[in-house]
């Protein structure tokens, strides 16, 4: 902890240390408020102002002792911070309950972040470069499209099956992905994404280039698409989707975070960073790559299913290499292995171009340049992955901390 006195008395290091939870709540709430405003903002001035504010906050967090202290506290209380974040996200939904567009955006960010966390499991932990993320995402949507056509299948089950189906389709790629390394494996997933897209386009069973319609999500007789009010409030029908998306995100986040902080997470790191050493110590390279690849694709599929049901249709368009690259850009930009980094980057990549019409046409170009800059000058991303500190899970504080 730094001993430099803070210019703002409330934020003196000592006080912050005494009330760490308050610091966490304030920080997370501030970030979510900013994020919410960003998604809601309509004028270009507002967007640019918010963007500038975020950049300043980031610079403070990254460069000043005060910011570093706050980041450290949030890191130490990460479980608590995640809980606060969940509540804040729900809070945003309440605030923007009637705004179609804002809620759609929020749900979209949540679902893409979910997919990106899954990609993190594959790339940042297991070291499998999956350049077909968007393809698996769209596969989830198609599964939902096919299954919702049959009435009587509970929609929650459809989500589960979408995950299983995408995971199972990923099995086709296991053999080539396992037998190869690095660029060769990348080629396999790139080829798969392109194959899927051209197949969906030329084959008419799944609607050809026009794609398919998907029925809205419903659970326990509640049809999400018909929701128009809750109690006395008029709400957007996107509200239940936003809630569902955030819940899906929370589940995926918890699941993959637990994988990271378990023996499996260590095994994945070992396999990724040095296959030779890992195998000498009795770890099966194939087993862990399979686990990460299949679970990752399944989670992407579930996110894709919800996304499809929310939009009401799916076309082969979203499955191209460009979209897969966009997903990978998100995780590289956010910081490989940092889940909240992926959320921040998803905001940057999905929301800002929607808001700044001036750059819409140039979005791909700008992101490509942005990712290049990150790779060259800050390869660990906006929020680098913190070291896995398991000492917090044992009954006593870590020695020497």
């Amino acid at each position, binding site marked *: 902890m730094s001993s430099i006195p803070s210019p703002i008395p409330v934020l003196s290091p000592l006080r912050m240390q005494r009330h760490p939870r308050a610091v966490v709540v304030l920080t997370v709430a501030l970030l979510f408020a900013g994020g919410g405003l960003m998604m809601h903002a309509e004028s270009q001035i507002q967007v640019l102002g918010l963007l500038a504010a975020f950049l300043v906050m980031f610079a403070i967090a990254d460069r000043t002792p005060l910011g570093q202290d706050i980041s450290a506290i949030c890191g130490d209380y990460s479980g608590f911070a995640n809980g606060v974040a969940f509540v804040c996200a729900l809070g945003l939904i309440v605030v923007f309950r009637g705004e179609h567009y804002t809620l759609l955006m929020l749900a979209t960010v949540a679902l893409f972040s979910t997919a990106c966390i899954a990609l993190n499991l594959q*790339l940042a932990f297991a*070291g499998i*470069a999956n*350049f077909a993320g968007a393809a698996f995402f769209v596969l989830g949507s198609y599964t939902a499209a096919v299954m919702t056509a049959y009435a009587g299948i509970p929609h929650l089950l459809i989500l589960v099956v979408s995950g299983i189906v995408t995971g199972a389709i990923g099995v*086709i*790629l296991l*053999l*080539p992905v396992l*037998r*190869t390394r*690095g*660029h*060769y494996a*990348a*080629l*396999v997933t*790139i*080829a*798969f994404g*392109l*194959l899927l897209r*051209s*197949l969906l386009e*030329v084959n008419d069973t799944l609607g050809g280039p026009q794609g398919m319609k998907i029925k809205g999500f419903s659970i326990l007789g509640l049809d999400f698409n018909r929701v128009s009010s809750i109690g006395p409030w008029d709400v957007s029908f996107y509200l239940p989707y936003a809630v569902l998306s955030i819940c899906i995100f929370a589940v995926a986040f918890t699941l993959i975070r637990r994988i990271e902080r378990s023996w499996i997470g260590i095994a994945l790191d070992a396999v990724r960073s040095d296959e*030779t050493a890992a195998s000498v110590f009795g770890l099966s390279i194939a087993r862990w790559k399979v686990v990460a690849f299949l679970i990752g694709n399944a989670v992407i599929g579930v996110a894709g299913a919800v996304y499809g049901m929310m939009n009401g249709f799916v076309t082969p368009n979203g499955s191209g*290499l*460009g979209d897969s*690259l966009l997903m*990978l*850009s998100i995780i*590289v930009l956010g910081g490989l292995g940092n889940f909240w980094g992926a959320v921040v980057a998803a905001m940057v990549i999905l929301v800002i171009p929607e808001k700044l019409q001036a750059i819409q*046409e*140039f979005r*791909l*170009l700008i*992101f*490509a*340049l942005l*990712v*290049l800059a990150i*790779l*060259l000058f800050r*390869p660990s991303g906006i929020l680098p992955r913190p070291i896995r500190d398991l000492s917090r899970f044992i009954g006593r504080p870590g020695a020497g901390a």
Partner: protein
Amino acid sequence: MDVGILAQQLFNGLMLGVIYAMIAVGFSLFFGVLDVIKFSHGDVVTVGAFSSLGAVGLAGGLVALPPVLALASGIAAAVTIGALAGVIIGRVLVLPLRHAPGVNVLLATLMAGTVLREAIRLGVPNGGNPKPFPALLPGGVIKAGSFSVGVDSVMILAAGLLLVLGTHLLITRTRFGLAIRAVAQDGEVARLSGIDFQTVVLGTFALGSALAAFAGCMLGLYYREINFNMGVLLGIIGFASAVVGGLGSMLGPIIGGFLFAGVQTLVVVALPVSSAYKDVIAFAAIIILIAIFPTGLIAERRSERV
């Protein structure tokens, strides 16, 4: 089946094969000297095609050039700008990221490709749509029974074959080629024996990229139409050819390119579902081939020292 149509398909296959080989050679060369895959290579093909289109258009707008000179200026532009693009990407991205994790290089070059692609789409007037490419080669048709082929096509094919052969000779017979092979063998040793590592690497990038850009020019002349994202597919097929043939070798990617074109042509000839599924089958072939030969037909020989 009609012999003429068969011959026609064979010719198409050869043309595709030459183009794939020209692209694959670059992948193999880059991998040889630096152990990296430069995924932007496919888009260098597009850069070549558009540069020559631009040069021809520009030159034609200023003075009425005879087709030969227009062609020459088009080729010169393609080769120069293509080589330049390759060198810049090599210098700015690939060399600095050489020691970073492989995925970073992969992503960086994919993004560099995206930059090239988007720059063309946004920078060329109406760049999002296919562009017609002028016919600069002499017309005329060679006929033999039901088989007929344009003189221009034959010239393109011959040029491609000559270039591939020339590159092969350059690599195997010249001092520059020797330096490339030395660096590919062992960069450290090559450096110690007085070879300027960076120059050789960038020279290799220039060579491979010029070849790809020329292939782009050929594609324009052959199909008479170019497109800002034609490089994606070509890059992947070129890479796949190089992988299948064996990355790092010189002959491998050439064989791989022709093999790939052969498979694609065969499918079109043999299967009635035809050309719509051409790409689907090409990609399926890539996946299956890699599953069977994970390090290429001519296996990349490499036992990691522990």
